[in-house]
């Protein structure tokens, strides 16, 4: 087991992904891989449903990948006040793990399309009085 987790979620219950939030706060991305069978799991799990192992190794991964899907939000939905409308959200398939992560796009998004390369950095999204650790993606040049 790793060090005691710091993570607290603002919305919804904290699952098995506490280490993910701790790593983001410290400025990097870590994701869980089953020690038993090597499978990457996202959402994080306590038990590998494929091999039954209970132990996962959290490995640093690069914030780089390609766009799997996207949307541009125009409607002022309650809960998204912290983001200026319209904003683009992308679902990104990571380059070095078979996992998709979601985040807001910063910078130019005109050329955004499925399959486009993106790189990420860690920021915060304001939600009420909280600031949720979040990934910002931008088109790779």
């Amino acid at each position, binding site marked *: 087991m790793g060090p005691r987790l710091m993570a607290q979620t603002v*919305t919804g219950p904290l699952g098995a992904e506490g280490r993910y939030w701790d790593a983001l706060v410290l400025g990097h991305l870590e994701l869980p891989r089953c020690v038993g069978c090597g499978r990457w799991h996202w959402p994080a799990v306590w038990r590998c449903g494929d091999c039954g192992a209970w132990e996962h190794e959290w490995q640093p991964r690069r914030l780089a990948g390609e766009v*799997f899907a996207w949307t541009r*939000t125009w409607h002022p939905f309650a809960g998204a006040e912290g983001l200026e409308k319209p904003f683009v*959200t992308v679902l990104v398939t990571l380059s070095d793990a078979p996992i998709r992560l*979601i985040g807001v796009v910063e910078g130019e998004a005109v050329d955004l399309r499925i399959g486009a390369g993106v790189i990420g950095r860690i920021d915060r*999204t304001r939600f009420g009085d909280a600031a949720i650790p979040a990934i910002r993606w931008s088109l790779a040049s």
Partner: protein
Amino acid sequence: MNANLSGATAIAGVGYRQYKRGTAPLPERGVLVRAIVDACEDAGFDPADVDGFVSYGDDHNEPVRLMPDLGTKELTWSGMVWGGGGGGIAGAFGLAAAAILTGQATAVVIFRALVEGNSGRLSAAVMAHHLNDHMVGAGMVAPAQVCAMRAERLFDYHGVPRSVCEELVRASYHHAARNPDAVAHGKELDVNDFRTARWIAEPFRLFDCSRENDGAGALLMVSTERARDLKKPPVKLLGVAQGTEKGWGDLLENDDADLYATAGFRPIARRLWEQTGLTPADIDVVQLYENFSAQGVASLIDHGFCTYDNVAEVVKFDNLIAPTGKRPLNTSGGNFAHGFVHGIGLAVEAVRCLRGESANPVPGARTCLLAGGPGAPTVSSAVFGRD
């Protein structure tokens, strides 16, 4: 084939009360009691003899609290299909049938009630069920946005033409324009308005999205044998399936790549057709839960009515409208244009349509598919039929 389920239970009565959002004349439970009594009167059945209640979508009305108004003698069954969206709507009929066929209840009301003053906005309630820091941090706070991303992939990656959504929405409005109970009664959809309406979340504009209404719907289920002694002809439950396959679900958008842009119904459709011995070609009319246009189209593809390749040949306005279309769909106007009380109006319309009571009749219709809320982690569908 599940001989125990096929046609052994039936809907004997329906009730539906719908109001403009925020204008229900009674609090939520009051509207629901009215709809349940409507369903019982429709069947000629004493409300006090209802002994089971089933709902879905995190409905707030605990059945035991309905007992004083209904005069319920004894409550023997209550249950709810899990999930915050409308995915469980058809599965609720399966829960009711399971109770009746195993002798745990004899008369079960399937219901859903929603009055904004009591339960808030439905979209907010559905999202609250699913909210987490991953999604909120990415600005994803509404079902429309999640469905929009999947729609973009359906169009751009899987090659489904965006124009099919317009065909689907036009058909719903066409029916609603001819349904006095519909929100959009008397109003044909102006195609130019559809194409230029404000963006909600790309690729969805305003008319790609379902409405929200205050109201309640209730359907009374009994054994088919018992239904034959009641006022209206029985509408039999021929088959029902609910659930989720591996690679689909509440997975932080990590559904399997080939499932991501679907509506989640592939395993549901497979089991439904196996169970009933029917195929999509045997379905005369469809009541299709459409939270958003693209998810409605994806649901039709999942159920086997068309494919990514031929969807534009099938999902055409002329094919979808009653009475002349090859397979009419959403004959009341559906969630887009009749009104939206978390989809329960579609189940009521399935029954009315098979009885010949629809505002847009489908002559000779014998079978109706009720396709539940698409894109939800748990989804469900059911087939109803006439003798």
